[in-house]
């Protein structure tokens, strides 16, 4: 998936503030196409993992209720400058995406 994705991580004291913006259609499977009248097939992110230096810090199971172009914000303890934050997601059609950033 060539969808763009933004990851930002900023240290405030000993707490790491992570912001993640994912570009995804997040179709619920309930919506009908206005022209054809056919149900638009569900297409949404199911699993999201946020890793700090390769170790999973947050793992989330998402469903169809999450909005289009989801934004995820979280705070982590025990991070230091130079560490890497990696985000991976997988949707119900097998699509995958990832993004990473180095803490400054």
């Amino acid at each position, binding site marked *: 998936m060539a969808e*763009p994705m*933004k990851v*930002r991580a900023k240290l405030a004291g000993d707490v790491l503030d992570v*912001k993640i*913006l994912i*570009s995804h259609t997040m179709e619920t499977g309930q919506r009908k196409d206005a022209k054809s009248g056919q149900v638009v097939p569900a297409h949404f992110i199911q699993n999201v993992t946020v890793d700090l230096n390769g170790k999973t810090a947050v793992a989330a199971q998402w469903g169809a209720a999450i*909005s*289009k*172009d989801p*934004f995820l914000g979280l705070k982590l303890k025990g991070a230091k400058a130079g560490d890497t934050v990696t985000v991976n997601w997988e949707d119900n059609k097998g699509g995958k995406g990832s993004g990473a950033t180095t803490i400054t």
Partner: protein
Amino acid sequence: MAEKHFSLSALALVALVVTANGQAADAEAYREFYPHVAIDPARGVAGGADAEFGATLQYWQDEQALEQNKGFIGQVDQEWKLNWKFMDLDRSDDMHPGYLALEKAEKLFKFWVKREPEFRACLGEGKTDLTGLAAGYPKYDPKLKKIMTVESRVEHCAQTALWENFRQGTPENNLISLYFKSLSATAPIKVDTNSPEIMASYKRGEKLFYTKVGQYNFSCASCHTSSGLLGQRFRGQVPTSPFADAAHFPTYRMNLGDIESLQQRFMRCNLQARTKGLPPGNPDYTDLEVFYTVLSNGYPVSVPSAR
């Protein structure tokens, strides 16, 4: 030849009927008007009697004022006083979907410019550097003898340079308009209020702002002035002041999940007030856009934005 004569005389007949009924047709379109409020178009954002428009200008008129009153954010009865301008505070932090749309827009623009370099020159009216140009829109184009908005310029240039039909309100038009306007981000809006054509359009737009229409008999002013609903909750939200409201369009609307132009916003606003909306690009909406943008004169363009 005979056919031509026939159609000509038919035309003359139609013209006769129109002149005979002209008076009647005018009288038929009965309209009520909301009381006018004096606005000085030469003074842009500060041109209104502030008390008539929520008395909030002091809280959001510039970045400093916004920073000072940051404490209002999140407080239900205070937040609206910032005229929702605090949503543009994150300019340095590209973490809202408006930026995702901008990336897509840039790709689309570069794709078309690579194919037809003339497209860029058409958008810039001869100039190839588009930086800051969109802040001067809407403006009167003496060559086309029309008032051009950013969207109608994109539509025109797509037709002449690309041979593509990017009608106003289509995703392609919105994206390219978004990219074009983002090149003027932070530049103060400067609509030429000395141009007689712009001022004639402004006058028409001002009249439309106070014209009551539709099933509810609402005018724009019914919600966007203090004697109307500005300052009170309406559909769960407080309406904005019309001042500086054009600065962040085209914007990413969270509830649509898409980019929306100012004229599409007019259309949706009309529909919500149970009025038949007009298609984007309609001359009436252009007049209203001129009115709104003149009221934003001097305020920096904040595109991309999310609302």
